[in-house]
């Protein structure tokens, strides 16, 4: 295993940890807003770390740029989805949004 492979394993594993934490948060957190918080952390950092890990495996600049573009798009879409869901939950019923136990 060379240095690039080792870096890939390290970054991808770190990304997987964030995804796992985000999923556990989504399942275990009590209300919509903290769940959204957990989920977007997984999206942003988890995917970012995995993208960094994969960059060490790509052989061309075009592939690296595509990977980064995917990350940026996922960031934009994720934060917007989070915003839309949060805004909808808040507008629907602020009490439910923070006290809900089961959606």
């Amino acid at each position, binding site marked *: 295993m060379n240095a690039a492979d080792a870096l890939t394993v390290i970054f991808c594993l770190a990304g997987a940890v964030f995804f796992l934490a985000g999923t556990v948060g989504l399942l275990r957190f009590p209300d919509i807003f903290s769940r959204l918080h957990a989920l977007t952390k997984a999206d942003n950092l988890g995917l970012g770390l995995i993208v960094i890990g994969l960059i060490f495996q790509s052989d061309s600049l075009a592939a690296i740029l595509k990977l980064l573009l995917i990350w940026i*798009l996922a960031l934009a*879409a994720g934060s*917007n989805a989070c*915003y*839309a869901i949060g*805004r*909808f939950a*808040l*507008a629907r019923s602020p009490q439910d949004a923070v006290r809900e136990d089961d959606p």
Partner: protein
Amino acid sequence: MNPLEHALDTLLCLLLLVLAWKALRAEHLYQSAIFFIAFGLGMALAWVRLAAPDVALAEAAIGAGLLGVLLLDSLRVFSRPPNGSGKARQNTDPGDAETATATTSRHPGARATRLLATAAAAGLAAVLVTAIVRIGDGGGLTEEAAGQLEGSGVEHPVTAVLLNFRGYDTWLEVGVLFLAMLGIYCAGGWVGLTGGREPDSPGPLLSWLIRGLTPLLILTAAYLLWLGKEAPGGAFQAGVLIGAAGILLRLAGYPLTAHLSPGMVKLGLTLGFGTFLVFGIAALIPGGAFLEYPEYWAGEIILLVETAAAISIGFTVFAFFAYLSSRDGSPSEEHNSKPSTTNSD
């Protein structure tokens, strides 16, 4: 194949079965729709595992993305009681979609319909299993297609099969989409397709995202279309992206259809089917078969036909959504635009 891959594939198969079952048996129709979207994404993964990225792309774009949007929007429109706009507002809540479930199960013919559907599905499954067992190891017509690839005008075997060897199939697929659109046109009228009140602004963040994403979506569609020549991609994937751009713009409140004359919309809807037809018939003139492109021009013709098909697919996909969102004349009750009205109160 190593044991880890075996384990992953088994897990994926189990996940698909569970998701399919959940989609069928979920308590609320809203949950069913969400499970169906997850099922579509799982299917896309399964196609990737089967080394069929073309199908995976189409499945993710159409099966999970587009169909998901249409299902959720249908649910929003049709789960609303026909009378009383005051109650309608509450019924946009996901949880209240259960009213729709309750009505279905109370329907007298529902049981018979369900049995019939089960029997039909079981029959289809039996036919498919027999087909899989009978395929054998040769891989069907793979070798023959690869042998003919040189004269097809493209380098990617899937595109060669879809647009040249079996162009008939793709032509009819575009025709099926066109027919579905005509059905919507018959039910909703031209207003349903082009008019209807445009939704309110969905808020600064979303409209910023949509303004940034639209050119990127069109660019990606063109990229996929061009890529179809040598790699996974093609008219359907590109068309769905164009349609998605239209849907996003409409959600953001841009009066997209107002900028296009009815003639332009009609042209866009029929372009794909028509172009196939023109080149199909033109192939007859020198004495060839229908849709048998001359070898010398095949690449250019395929690109032209695919571009036309992608534009038509985009228009058709957009028309499906536009009809739904204008159906009740109040598309502003879309989830992400609703809170803005509340904020301004």
